[in-house]
């Protein structure tokens, strides 16, 4: 295979002084799937932004087919056939899917080509979708479609621009396993047509499954590039993190005690007013982890929000340690030692423009122990924040750093630290490791298990089936706003079996346990 793109000795210093790349080399061969891995903040996204012309390297050269090129902006990159799907969606929410796809390259008509040609737009998009099997409702506003479809829109955008080299920055972080499979099918189809793919992920399983070669970055430097066939996840993770990483969570069998949370016949509506929970009943006992599995959009989000008081219920009851939670405000519920790690850490889980310390004291600023007279006790807060950062290994200069400047993994650690620092009796954790590197995953998982062993009731919601299976003692499967099965997480339980329930194809035999659960 010929070398299509080469980045040589790339350095990048951001205006705020962060050295994100410190001599990176990368070679991309034509027609390959090239995986890029590394810890959070290793400089993967930065490198790709430079390749796509969004950032300018401080020094170093980029070559296309052996010729040095300069990329003044995305337009230049598009000329060389580059396309990029960004880690955080680059979509305009109030525009429609098709407007987003053609944005900047609209088909035009009329005098001086002044007007949009909506007919041509529709035709071209329909054809594109048919060719690559990526279906999205073209006239829907982007703000109304689910993440999986947003991802497709991003890929369609790239294809529409005729890109031959496609950069995918953590495309699977927000996808369900099914959606990931579909994405991989599309990627394989593209490669078969001669496209070149650069693929960033934290999931080594995916690296092994789909890539031809893999480059490992660490702290802004290239460690090495390996043939995927000639390596294994253990080796990659050792190169990334610099030590052995455990892939299975070590945990003892659960010793469940009294029920902490019991939910009965819970109903609630989604944002548009349609029923999202249609009578959910479940129970979590102290010292156990209940995993919630399900294809995203089957009511998991609403379930968590209703229990934590962020969404009103329309029927049913929630009891927590013998007290009624229904109708209480989020503030009251949080004050009752309910911890909640929300699925969306960027907006709900953290205030990016506030400092780390400010993010950490969300539950404590009203606490007299953190007061001095009518004021906040700055010294106490500082001590607290520093302790938390130490315990949870949050890597940042100090506690006054804006949360937004942390890498995803570190930010997630801040959120987890805050929720665990209140010693919750009930801990509800949504997507705890989305977009987080393997070292941090290991850490977060072990913290969750520690809490369970400390006697907390834990609910884990994750789109990552493997994560649910690794952490849970029992697994409840949600389908269309109902719990269709509650399964004991034993050695015999397989992903396939859970998958069947997730798709609504459950069998009678397993429904037995489901009924049992309802009887409680």
């Amino acid at each position, binding site marked *: 295979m010929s070398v299509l793109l080469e980045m040589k000795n790339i350095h990048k210093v951001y205006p705020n002084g962060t050295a994100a790349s410190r001599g990176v080399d990368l070679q991309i061969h034509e027609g390959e799937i090239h995986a890029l891995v590394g810890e959070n903040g290793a400089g993967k996204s930065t490198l790709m932004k430079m390749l*796509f012309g*969004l950032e300018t390297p401080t020094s170093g050269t980029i070559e296309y087919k052996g010729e040095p090129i300069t990329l003044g*902006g*995305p*337009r230049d990159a*598009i000329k060389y056939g580059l396309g*990029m799907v*960004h880690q955080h*969606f*680059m*979509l*305009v*929410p*109030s*525009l429609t899917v098709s*407007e987003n796809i053609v*944005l*900047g*390259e*609209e088909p*035009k008509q009329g005098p001086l080509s*002044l*007007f*949009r040609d909506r007919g041509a737009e529709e035709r071209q998009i329909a054809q594109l979708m048919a060719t690559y099997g990526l279906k999205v409702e073209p006239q829907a506003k982007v703000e109304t479609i689910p993440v999986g479809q947003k991802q497709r829109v991003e890929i369609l*955008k790239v294809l529409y621009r005729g890109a031959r080299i496609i950069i995918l920055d953590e495309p699977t972080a927000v996808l369900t396993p099914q959606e990931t499979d579909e994405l991989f099918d599309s990627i394989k189809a593209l490669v078969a047509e001669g496209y070149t793919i650069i693929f960033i992920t934290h999931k080594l399983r995916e690296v092994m499954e789909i890539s031809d070669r893999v480059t490992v970055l660490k702290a802004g430097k290239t460690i090495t590039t390996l043939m995927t066939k000639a390596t294994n996840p253990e080796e990659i993770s050792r190169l990334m993190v610099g030590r052995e990483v455990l892939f299975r969570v070590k945990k003892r069998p659960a010793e469940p005690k009294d029920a902490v949370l019991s939910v009965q016949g819970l109903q609630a*509506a989604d*944002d*548009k*007013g349609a029923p999202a929970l249609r009578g959910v009943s479940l129970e979590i006992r102290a010292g156990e982890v209940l995993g919630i599995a399900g294809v995203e959009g089957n009511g998991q989000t609403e379930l968590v929000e209703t229990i934590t008081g*962020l*969404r*009103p219920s329309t029927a049913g009851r929630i009891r927590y340690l013998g007290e009624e939670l229904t109708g209480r*405000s*989020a503030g009251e519920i949080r004050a009752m030692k309910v911890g909640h790690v929300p699925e969306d850490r960027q907006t709900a889980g953290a205030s990016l423009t506030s400092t780390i310390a400010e993010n950490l004291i969300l539950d404590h600023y009203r606490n007299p122990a953190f007061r001095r007279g009518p004021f906040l006790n700055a010294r106490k807060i500082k001590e607290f924040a520093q302790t938390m950062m130490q315990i949870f290994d949050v890597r940042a200069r100090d506690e006054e750093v804006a949360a937004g400047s942390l890498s995803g993994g570190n930010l997630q650690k801040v959120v987890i630290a805050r929720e665990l620092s209140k010693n919750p009796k009930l801990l509800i954790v949504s997507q705890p490791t989305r977009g987080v590197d393997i070292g941090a995953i290991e850490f977060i998982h072990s913290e969750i298990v520690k809490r369970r062993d400390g006697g907390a009731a834990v609910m884990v919601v994750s789109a990552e089936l493997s994560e649910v299976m690794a952490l849970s003692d029992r697994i409840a499967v949600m389908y269309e706003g109902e719990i269709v099965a509650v399964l004991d997480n034993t050695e015999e339980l397989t992903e396939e079996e859970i998958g069947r329930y997730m798709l609504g194809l459950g069998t009678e035999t397993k429904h037995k346990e489901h009924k049992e659960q309802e009887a409680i």
Partner: protein
Amino acid sequence: MWQSIWSQLMDLTLVVVLLRYMTPILLAALGGLISDIAGVLNIGLEGLMLISAFTSIAVGSASGNWLVGVAAGMGASILICLCMGFFSIKLGVDIIIAGFAVNIFGSGITIFLMSKIFHVTGNYSPSERTPIPAVKLPVIQDIPFLGKLLSGHSLMVWIALLAVLFCVVLIYRTPYGVHLRAVGEAPSAAKSLGIPVNRIRYSALAWSGAFAGLAGAYLSMGMTSMFVKDMTAGTGFLALAVVLLGKRNPVGILIGSLIFGLASAVTTIVQTTEGTAIPSQFVQMIPYLVTLAALVFFEVRKRKGSAVPAAHTL
């Protein structure tokens, strides 16, 4: 009073007055709209209108041609907007500060130029008047009802109404319009697609300058034939309110301007009716109270439409 309002409604005087009050607000608000959807809220409409009002009448009377005057007014206003862009986009001045600066500047520079060029203070009424012509529709003007409704309005009234259509087409029917919205809503997304974000912002400011320019020209060469210092007297801020009242969409802005125009027209009638017992200050409040009421009405109605109650109120 009611009788007076009724009779003026019937003989369409109310409509004619309404259109005159509506026009400058509508034009300036459309300008505000375009910059606002591109993410650069233009607080400087007031100053821009003053600058254009002065420039257009000065150039119009010097050249003896209203069209040249209007063009000059628009040009001056666009130029100031580009300077605003330079300060806010290039030098990072907060766009709101830049807008206030334009307002202060507009008031000062017009008075200064008036005294330097025409050696007058306070106001300038050229001896040669070059008003923006009124449109008399040949046959229609003789039809009783239709004639008064459609004929005899200043050309700028029609331009303002057409400008609504123009903005609809510009924003929703052209690629440029989509780019405007993208730049305002998700600049980094726009940038990642190679859309020149800053250039779009400059252009949006230029549009707002063009429309504010038309509005200003109408004040000095349409509604009146003179420039009076600070003659906008808050119109730019009302236009800003209408941008937001109209939910950032041209038709909404038309409705907002009509509501405001109607309230002003009715206020004028109330104010000129003999023997109203209401103190004048309270009569003058009517347009503002009506705007408030309209805002609340639209919001409450919208909220009734959505099924989910806001999760957390007080």
